């Protein structure tokens, strides 16, 4: 079907009155992995927050649809229920909210009543084992006092538990050691291999190519100054690894 996918067309967005996104065109097809790379300040996170509905980000032009549904018209919670997920670069710490209760509330919100509490629990422990997470995590407060690696593991656990149609991973690799990065790669692979997740599309936002050694991208986009400057295959990531973003800046006459 032609309207399948997370389809972004001519998207412009402002933060505090400044235009950050200057016309983004990008389509993540079901089952595909797209990488979005770019230097700091190019607008990658702005795209993630604009798509997921953060109130500080105003879309001024363009469209975004999820399998045909206009998500820009929806509040943030309904975008999630439509099947969109964001793995945060900096997840909020919320003392007083226990991880287990939060995960259950989120699953109930996104997929109401589809699992009995005991099946939910079993699923949770299976996914946690995959991510090398201690069951004691469940009784801790959400991201409160978590190390950088623990926060990212919890984001990946939420990805696994919510099994969205489209997932945006915003710099999930930043601050991770090699073992944690491997666990992230394996949990994404496990989701893609599962019945729930095999049609999931991914938009992996990253500054560095190394996460792409663990999650193979079908398409790589380079974002510079609020626009997609170049789109290609996995080899584009290797080019960035070798030469940095300057080559693409020069090619596009963008003054960094």
């Amino acid at each position, binding site marked *: 079907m032609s309207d399948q996918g997370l389809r972004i067309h001519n998207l412009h967005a402002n933060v505090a009155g400044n235009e950050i996104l200057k016309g983004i065109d990008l389509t993540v097809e079901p089952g595909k992995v797209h990488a979005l790379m770019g230097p700091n300040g190019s607008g990658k996170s702005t795209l993630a927050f604009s798509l997921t*509905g953060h109130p500080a980000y105003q879309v001024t032009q363009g469209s975004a649809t999820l399998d045909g549904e206009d998500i820009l018209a929806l509040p*943030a919670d309904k975008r999630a*229920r439509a099947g969109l*997920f964001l793995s945060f670069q900096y997840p*909020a710490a*919320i*003392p007083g909210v226990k991880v287990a209760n939060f995960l259950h509330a989120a699953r109930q*919100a996104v997929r109401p009543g589809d699992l009995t509490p005991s099946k939910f629990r079993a699923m949770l422990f299976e996914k946690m084992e995959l991510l090398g997470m201690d069951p004691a995590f469940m009784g801790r407060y959400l991201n409160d006092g978590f190390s950088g690696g623990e926060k990212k593991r919890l984001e990946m656990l*939420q990805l696994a538990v919510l099994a969205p149609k489209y997932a945006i991973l915003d710099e999930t690799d930043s601050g991770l050691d090699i073992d944690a990065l491997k666990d992230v790669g394996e949990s994404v692979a496990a989701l893609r291999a599962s019945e729930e997740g095999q049609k999931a599309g991914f938009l992996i936002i990253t500054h560095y190519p190394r996460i792409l050694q663990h999650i193979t991208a079908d398409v790589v986009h380079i974002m510079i100054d609020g626009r997609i400057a170049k789109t290609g295959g996995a080899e584009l990531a290797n080019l960035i690894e070798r030469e940095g973003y300057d080559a693409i800046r020069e090619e596009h006459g963008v003054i960094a």
Partner: protein
Amino acid sequence: MPSALEDRLLSGNARAAARERYESTPSGRERTGRYWKIDLDALSLDLTAFGPDAGAVTIENSNPRAIACDLHTAAAEHGPLLARAFGTTGAAQTKFGALTTAFAGLGAFVYIPADAACDDPIVVTYDIPAASNVFPYTVVLVERGSRATIVERFEGGGGAFVCAAAEIVAEENAAVTFASVQGLAEDARILTTRTSRPGRNATIAWATADLGSALSAGELIVAIEHPGAHADIATLFFPRGNQHVDIVSTIEHRVGNSTSETLVKSAATDRGQARYLGNIRIAANAQGSDASLRDDALLLSKNAHIDSVPALEIAANDVKAFHGATVGALDQNSIFYIESRGIPRNDAERMIALAFFEPALDRFPTEKLRQDLRTALAAKLQ
């Protein structure tokens, strides 16, 4: 007909003296202004309408070694025990404690003999009739080396005026947890005076929750006069509509090597108003004391208002004293984080606001009570 209470503890003269003291003592809150929203001296109470014994008390106790009974029974059957605590911690020296004393009759007495672990909560429930004037008085005496948990509840009270007192005496090595939950009708008024005296190496832990009433003004005092004593205060309140809460807590470290920990979690919404004044006083000879005061306030509407005033007076030079206070609104990034997981904004806000109270809820005894409090707080967030 004079009861045992009159005969043994409260002669007509003692009541008259307490009434006199009420009339001549300033509340300490007579000025209105930035931190003093209500003039408690201007409540224009009609004392001629007051009398003892309005209201009802029920007492649940399953600890075989504890005595828990109403105040009249205590005076008649356990007079000497009651006299060791009643009026001994300074409640009657405050303006409103004197008023409670002047009209005392309704009340409860809890006595724990030495070396008894009474871990099942003793529950004292005051049922306040509508449009009544009620003077509940709870007295607790815990002897050396014993443990006790007391839960006091105020219920009912449409349009009522309640002036309540609670006194705790904890002897050497005793540990007392006293939780008081005020869930009166939203047009009631309640004034509370809570005073306590921990012995050497004793712990007194107060946990108070103000959820109901139009006006709740409270004064809580722990006077530490023996080394090794520990005072713990956890206070939560949540005015909404036009509710008004005004709490003063005071911990007096009069001797050294004593510790205290005060935690206040408050929220206000609609036109709810609150003020909290937290006094920590460390006397010159109270070296080695350790006091902390943490006070967080959450504002959920632009017309809500909470003033937090920590006041530390430290005369000793070898002490640890910490205080921290925050006043703020819900964090927008936290709300978005929860929303982004499919949870509607209102639910996300409620989730964060309830979570905010958790550290204070943790200091209340029993999971059932904590759950009751969460339910009541959630209802206020609707």
